[in-house]
């Protein structure tokens, strides 16, 4: 058993930042649309593969990220308009339908990309290590950390300072009243769904450059996202941030100290939290 050092703490933080990016999309969709999108992990992986394909053909990381976000947002649009519309209002049927979509997407990606491991090529200025506080740390991981913080700020501003955000928040609390006020709540739902999906795509593109992409990566990130949202509470941005920090740090601690039981280290505290707050730390009753 070895103890933690700054390097590992930073690893935990950067992983938490990535988790936040992915889980914030998940919690947005869960909070507003009451849809537990179990295809979220597959959307993450799809984003990663898109980013890999685009970034390696065009040579631009930025193009890769944008392509991933756009492709996954469109997939989200198709999923919502093409399939989920048939089961609206049935919570459980929606969940199980997205589960089916996740299985199909995962298998199709296995057909296209095979079982190999891919890494999204990071741009040159993010390669290598930065020297600070007497140690070297990969620049790219610091970029992910900064991106996570940036996404948190952007989402916070979007939700709290814009008209769209006000509508989304109102929609979380009482969609019927919003619709009665003459606002097209369905369009807001759809926008939120696409935004949430795009965040999964962004996560895949960014995560694909340091966690690598492989066929079961979608299930792993989905479980981490679930843990984040279960801890943080449905639809809460702050909850997602706190949850991501907890899961990210616990995962690092677990991997360093009890490599064979890393999963257990994450889910133990999650279970403890649930025993006292079944709706998560920042969850509210519907």
């Amino acid at each position, binding site marked *: 058993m070895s103890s933690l050092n700054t390097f590992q703490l930073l690893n935990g933080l950067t992983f938490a930042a990535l988790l936040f990016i992915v889980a914030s999309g998940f919690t947005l969709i869960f909070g507003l649309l009451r849809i537990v999108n179990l295809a979220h992990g597959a959307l993450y992986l799809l984003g990663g593969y898109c980013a890999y394909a685009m970034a390696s053909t065009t040579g631009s990381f930025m193009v890769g990220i944008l392509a991933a976000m756009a492709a996954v947002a469109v997939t989200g649009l198709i999923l919502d308009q093409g*399939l989920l519309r048939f089961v609206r209002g049935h919570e459980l049927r929606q969940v199980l339908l997205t589960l*089916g979509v996740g299985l199909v997407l995962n298998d199709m990606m296995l057909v296209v990309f095979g079982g190999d491991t891919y890494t999204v090529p990071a741009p040159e200025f993010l390669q290598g290590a930065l020297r600070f506080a007497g140690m070297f740390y990969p620049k790219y991981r610091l970029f992910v950390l900064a991106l996570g913080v940036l996404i948190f700020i952007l989402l916070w501003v979007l939700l709290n300072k814009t008209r769209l955000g006000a509508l989304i928040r109102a929609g979380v609390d009482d969609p019927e009243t919003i619709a009665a006020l003459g606002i097209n709540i369905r369009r807001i739902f759809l926008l939120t769904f696409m935004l949430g999906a795009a965040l999964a795509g962004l996560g895949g593109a960014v995560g694909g450059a340091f966690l690598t992409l492989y066929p079961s990566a979608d299930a792993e990130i989905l479980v981490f996202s679930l843990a984040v949202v279960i801890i943080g509470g449905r639809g809460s941005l702050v909850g997602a941030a706190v949850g991501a920090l907890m899961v990210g740090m616990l995962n690092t601690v677990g991997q360093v100290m009890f490599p064979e039981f890393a999963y257990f280290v994450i889910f133990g505290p999650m279970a403890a939290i649930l025993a006292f707050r079944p709706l998560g730390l920042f969850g509210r009753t519907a």
Partner: protein
Amino acid sequence: MTPAPTPAAAGKPSFMPRLGLAAVILGTLFFAIAPLLVPTYQISILTEVLIYAVLAMSVDILAGYTGRTPLCLGAVFGVSTYVTVYWTSTMGGSPYTGMMLGILAATLVAAIFAILAIRTTGVYFLLLTLALGMIIWGICLRWTSVTGGENGLRGAVRPAELAAHMPFYYVVFVAVAIITFIMWRFVRSPFGLTLRGIRDSDSRMRSLGYNVSLHMFIAFTVAGVFAGVAGALYAMFNDFVSPSTVALTQSVEGLLMAITGGVGTLFGSFIGALAIIGLENAVSIYTERWQTVLGLVFIFIMIFAPDGILGGIKTLLARKRG
């Protein structure tokens, strides 16, 4: 996916039970005679159908009778398989002790999961049980010194006298018949009726003085016992276990079988298991993309037939009689 109305509640008591009895006898006859009519390879498929029907019925106890859909019973099933295989291979113990230990381990895991999960309902229950099941998967995958990691474990569970397909099928057939009878008694018992009360309104049951948490705990643990029995049988059937036995797809398939048959019908699980495993084997002739087909079946059933086959038939019959 509302559970189908039970025949007893439909008002005309004489007709439906007789029809149901006829269906049960027909189904039993089918599974008793079928292995005599098919080639050897398909006998093992039928054995698999019976084992998975038990898993699907354990899912149905929770999904159909308490109204809480679990996504962890595949993992509980797999725990039993792992323990049984581990006991016979690494420890060199007897298969029957191994199966007992496997069922015991599954029961323990289910009891722990139950304590954590019974406070939640609806989608939260589904998510939490999904996450709990994934812990088992994570441990089985990483704890290589015990579980063999990705390579899995090869066991020595099946005794020599059951090595042939035919005798083994009939042993499983008798075991599953007994288990099914016990489960049927369980869901028809006053306890089972209380569970249905909780499904319909747990706040009402609570104010009537029922201890809802205790009932849920017992129901969950009992479902775990039966999933464990299925897992132990599977250990004997397959003599091999790997992380895919405890993976999410296992729970998903169990749930899909229960839903395909009809949630809340118990016996529908046999139809569901037959349909899904039959499809799996039929599809494998043409393509390796079973997971895609599984996903598509899921999507199709959720959109068009959420009540499942038996549930749909029951609704039709109820409508016909006005």
